[in-house]
Every structure is written in C-alpha cells, then in structure tokens.
C-alpha cells in the first residue's frame, strides 16, 4: 500500500475542487456529506456552493444517514482496469433524496442479487491517502426498512 512505485491499477481517482473538498474530506473520515439549502430546505448532490432548486447561496453541509435504495444499474461485462468484471455500475437514491452513482459491494453482481429498491448502506473504500470513495452494500437485516419511493425533487 505504501509502495513507492506505481500502484496496481485502481479505479479512476477523482480530483477535488474547492467546491467539492468538503465531500472528499467527509469520505476520508467515513462520513457521507450532502448539502441542504437553508432557505428552501432542499437536499442536493453533487456538491456546489448554491442551491440548484432556488439559487440561494445560503447552504450548509450535512452528514447523510448513509441509508439508500438501489435506483437503477447495469452490469458491465467488459474488462476495465481497476475493476473485476462483471460489476454493477449503479445509481442509488439516498434517504435524503439525492441520487448518486456508485458500486454495490458485498453482494453478488447478478440480476438476481441486485434487486431494484433493495435497502443499502454506505461504506467507504480508501483509494489513496487523500481519496476514499463511497460505495454501498446491502443493509444489515436489522436495519432494513421499506424502500423509499419518495420523489427527489
């Protein structure tokens, strides 16, 4: 992990910008951060310093619950550096409303195992010292809950 030579191929590594730094600081410490508008109360993602619903700059960062449901996906069958095929490229809907692309881990990558609206919870994969990416896994049975069908916007 600390080898000075080029590491084995990893997933593409994101490069934070000033507007997104809080998000990647959060994932590094095991927190999934979204933003919420102080004027209209909309929760949103990806990060930006204003509300996409009402254009207000009066917004705050908050920790999401990490609970989500599986919204849609494909299972990629071709070989990609940093990934073991086949693997699902998924979009999940967070409990707070926003959706995000991710991978589903600790789960067979099959249509039978990946059921739309299944309950998920966030987990984090450390890619390097700076970047950890949020991934999702099936929620513990004790924490499972009815699938959310609430509209995002």
């Amino acid at each position, binding site marked *: 992990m600390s080898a000075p030579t080029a590491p084995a191929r990893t*997933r593409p590594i994101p490069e934070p910008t000033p507007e997104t730094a809080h998000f990647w600081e959060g994932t590094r410490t095991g927190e999934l951060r979204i933003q919420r508008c102080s004027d209209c109360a909309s929760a949103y993602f990806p990060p930006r310093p204003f509300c996409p619903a009402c254009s207000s700059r009066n917004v705050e960062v908050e920790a999401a619950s990490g609970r989500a449901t599986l919204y849609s996906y494909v299972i990629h069958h071709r070989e990609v550096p940093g990934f073991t095929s*086949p693997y699902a490229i*998924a*979009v999940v809907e967070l409990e707070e409303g926003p959706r995000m692309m991710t991978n589903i881990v600790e789960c067979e990558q099959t249509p039978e195992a990946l059921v739309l609206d299944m309950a998920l919870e966030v987990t984090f994969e450390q890619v390097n010292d700076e970047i950890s990416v949020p991934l999702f896994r099936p929620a513990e049975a004790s924490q499972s809950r009815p699938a959310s069908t609430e509209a995002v916007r």
Partner: protein
Amino acid sequence: MKQKSVAVVGAAETTEMGKIPNLSQLGLHADGALNAMADAGLTAADIDGIACAGESPVNLAQYMGIVPTWVDGTSVGGCSFMLHVRHAAAAINEGLATTILITHGESGRSRVGVGGYGMARASQNGQFEMPYGPMGPPTMFTIPWLRYAKTYGATAEDLANVAVIQREWAALNPRASYRDPLTVDDVLGSRMIAWPFTKLLCCLVTDGGGALILTSADRAKDFPQKPVYVLGTGESVETQMVSQMEDFTTSRAFRVSGKKAFDEAGITHDDVDHLMIYDAFAHLPIYGLEDLGFVGKGEAPAFIRERNTAIGGKLPLNTNGGGLSYMHSGMYGMYAMQESVRQLRGIAPAQVEGAEISIAHGVGGMFAASGTIIFSNVAP
C-alpha cells in the same frame, strides 16, 4: 412562426460510409460538405455561414475556403446538428447570413485525425461518475433503463423488438452496414455488454459524415432540388451526468425540445408521416416516442411490438435502419436529418409513400441534450 421561412436546399452524406480509413475527421466534414454543395449547385464562395460540431468551425472555414459572416460551434453531442439547424434558421431570418452550411464528419471506427476522449478528473463526471467504472456510453446511457422497465413492466424482449424492426428497414437500404434479418433471440443471445444490454442493442461504430445547406424559403425555389422546409424546431439540455437525470423513466430534454418544435410548427401528432429518433441504444426510441407525445407513458413497447413503427405501420420510424443497423459514427444526429430530407424529397431507399411531414429528434451525450426538427416538403 418565423421558422417556416427557411428551407434545406442541399443535403448529402459522405461518398463512402462505414469504414473510411483514407479520410481524417476534417476530411469527412469536407467530403460531406462538397457533396451537399454539389447537390445545391453551390461552391464555397456562395456559403456565408457555417456550423459544425466535433471539429472547430475555424478549421472547417479555412479548409473549405469559406469566409463566413456567421459561425456556430455549438457542441452538445450527437444532436448538435439539430441545434445548428435551429440556430441557422434564426440567423437567416435575422439576416446574419443567407446560405448556411452545417457539417458533420467523424472517424469513429478508423480514428484518423481524431482528438482524445476523456473526462478531466476534477470535472463533475470525473469526481462523481468515473470512479465507479463506467466505460463510455454502453455503461452510462443504459443505466436508466432498469428503472423504466420496473416502472412500466417492460422487458428485454421489448428492447430487442426495436433492433429487429429497424433491421427490417435496413434490409431495404443498400448503404446500411447490416441488412441480414434478425430475431429477438439473435439480439438477446448476442454478446453481453452491460446487462441487460447485449451487443445488438447497442449502436454501430463506423466512419462517415454529412452536410446540410439552408437558405431562406424565398430563395429555395431557385435551387435544383425540391426544397425541404423547416416548420418547427426545439432544443434543450438537462445534465452531463446520467446519474443526475430528474427521472430515469423520461428525458426532460426530450420533452422540452419536442414540445417547442410542435408548438412552433403548429401541427399535431397525427400530421406526422415519418419519424427519426436517434437510437444510440435500443431504449432511445422507446423514450422518444413517449417524450415526444406520440404515445402515453409506458406505452411505447406495445406500440412497437404491434408493428406501428415497422414497414407498413402507421408511424414509420428510423427507416434508414438507424444507429443500430445503418451507421453510427458517434454523433448520429446528422444522419437522422439526412433521412428526413430524403423521405421528403421522395428519394429514400425505403420511401414512405406521400410523406409530407417528417421529424428528426436527436439526443446528445447520455440524455444530456436534445434537438428536434420538424420538416415538410409543402411550402408553408
């Protein structure tokens, strides 16, 4: 309805189609442009406006020897050419140019003279999509489908029907890349790319190009070809990140663009004789039929299954074979409009008898953008 005062007077594709290793991307733009100028009886000296995507309009002007007074480099993906037609119509109406050339050329397969493809790691896509392993359109454009399928009870067979029926159209087109008949089993049994999308549910990757020339409807009557008038136009964009679409069962950009075009043209759906919907993947015609309002939500799979879009059906769709069977260089919107123009000139290989109104509806990126053009061969 100002748009009704503009017409297509030159239209052509590249001389060859499919695999063209002897021409660069810029060369393909020029080949289509030269063919369209010959079609209209014009030379570069007659052109005073240019638009293109995938290539700099500055390169095009210098390469072709054109001195433009109007330039449009709008580049929002494969529907950019629909947006160019819309902008060109406004420019001609406003007197910014009189004779506008719109070109497309793409060495999608041979990759001659092509720039790199990639997303910056600090872009929104680079931070919030690329880390999860999407590799191009087959793994991004396709993601919304499962949500549509669950919402409306659609199946993989519904996707396959799109490919099968378009192959029937392609069989009538000598320039189509693939013309052999297909069955639903052939489609679903082809190599898995990104479940549930098999290879035959994904578009081709070929070389090619094409160009259109527009001028005012008043002048159009003096050109050698039958004029094809622009009745209505629409455009919109939604998001560069497919994960951030408002609703995975419908495209907002499709709905906004389509409604604008219908409103501008002042026509109803029953007036439409022929339809082109950009089919980068087999679910696109399903979304397009619904979002343009030809059928209700969730009704397109049955509409296609009942052969309404097939040969002899009431709404002939993608009659060149589409991106699934005809060709797809990467930015297919130009070919959709070329087929609309051929149909309205009455020279299409799979001619729809008596067609008077045709719509070409395009998508850009992965549901990122949209453009809609309503054409007619009847002078407005």
